[in-house]
């Protein structure tokens, strides 16, 4: 075996991370004498380092989004629907996969852990917050069509059943924020850590993780969930269309 062949064998073992200590010593000696292998190693390392620049962490919320989609599928409450024109279907279209017609809301049963009021968060409130957690940040911020700052509805309404009640969920985009609005004929129970808000009806605010919650109970109750501070929720809710 000549020097070049031995160098190629050592190079292969080096790249595979399989150099024995004796081979590693021979490899080091070989590199000092072989310009070709030295260059190969240098370029290999440079290419690897360059490629590693492309690493990018998964966006926050993607895990929740995926888990939510799997949970819905597991619950057997929606059928997976392949888009007619590609996979560029955002999560909310999947969440509303049963929405075969724009004006028809689907009925989706969200099975929360235990399916009952758990801990200090009522199941219906937790379901809305969880739904809101799957909403990714708006990718194309802006007011959209209509007058500047006007809320733009995203996707189709979805009907959720949680905690033994049904509610209709809609997603609205306001600038760079997307808010989930749950509408129910029954009042939303106030979580243990919520704060009452002065004003008409029985209003309260609360926080669940990154999601702020603002509720206006009345003849028709609304629960707004969005990734904004609680202090901004009332103003945000005021910009939304009436239920």
């Amino acid at each position, binding site marked *: 075996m000549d020097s070049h062949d031995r160098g190629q064998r050592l190079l*292969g073992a080096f*790249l*595979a991370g399989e150099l024995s200590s004796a081979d590693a010593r021979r490899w080091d000696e070989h590199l000092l004498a072989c310009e070709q292998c030295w*260059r*190969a190693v*240098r*370029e*290999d*390392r*440079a*290419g*690897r*380092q*360059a*490629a*590693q*620049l*492309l*690493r*990018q*962490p*998964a*966006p926050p919320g*993607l*895990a929740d*989004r*995926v*888990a939510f*989609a*799997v*949970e819905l*599928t*597991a*619950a057997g409450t929606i059928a*997976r629907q392949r888009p007619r024109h*590609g*996979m*560029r*279907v*955002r*999560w909310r279209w*999947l969440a509303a996969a049963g929405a075969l017609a724009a004006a028809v809301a689907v009925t989706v049963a969200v*099975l929360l*852990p235990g399916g009952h009021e758990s801990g200090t968060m009522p199941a219906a409130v937790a379901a809305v917050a969880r739904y809101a957690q799957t909403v*990714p940040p708006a990718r194309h911020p802006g007011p959209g069509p209509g007058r500047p700052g006007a809320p733009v509805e995203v996707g189709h309404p979805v009907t959720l059943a949680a905690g033994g009640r049904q509610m209709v969920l809609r997603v609205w985009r306001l600038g760079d924020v997307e808010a989930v609005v749950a509408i129910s004929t029954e009042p939303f129970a106030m979580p243990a850590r919520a704060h009452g808000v002065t004003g008409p009806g029985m209003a309260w605010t609360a926080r669940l993780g990154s999601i702020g919650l603002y509720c206006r109970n009345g003849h028709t109750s609304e629960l707004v969930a969005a990734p904004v501070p609680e202090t901004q929720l009332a103003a945000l809710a005021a910009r939304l269309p009436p239920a």
Partner: protein
Amino acid sequence: MGADHRAFLEATLPHLDVVYQVARRAAGDGQDPEDLVQETYLRAYAAFGSWRGGSTRAWLAAICLNAARSEARRRRRRPWEVPIRVPLDALPMARADGGQDTADVADVVIAGLDAQAVSRGLAQLPEPQRVCIVLMDVAGYTAAETAQVLGCPRGTVLARVHRGRRRLAQLLAEAGVSHGQP
């Protein structure tokens, strides 16, 4: 929620980040990597009952690539294909020296990297090399896992990734030298 669904998420969600790395590079033009990740997980969940075990993340990567290919076929386009060939001399690379065309490739590459330039350079590689680099260097799969994903011998993977890395370094360096940026 069934127990299998919880078991599935426990087994697979820890690998979301590496699947996302693969999806970002595998998603074709017009495909959203996040949609591809979600599609991957839904396909994996559907197949979870018949999954025989092994490397979970290798299994997920294979599903991700298949999902991307399916979508690309549906669109009559091949995955891993760059819709527009970007001239290499457009890559914003820095020169490593004062203008010598014989500058060391590795030095030139390391001196002026940015992710966008690397992404364009990577797109110039043959698909087999590109896939191996994405799986090993971008997503962090081992050579054995990559071999499992691609269904080829580990030695083949090592050879491809080595050739691909060298070619990538050379392309970036050539671009940097020819571009003439200080």
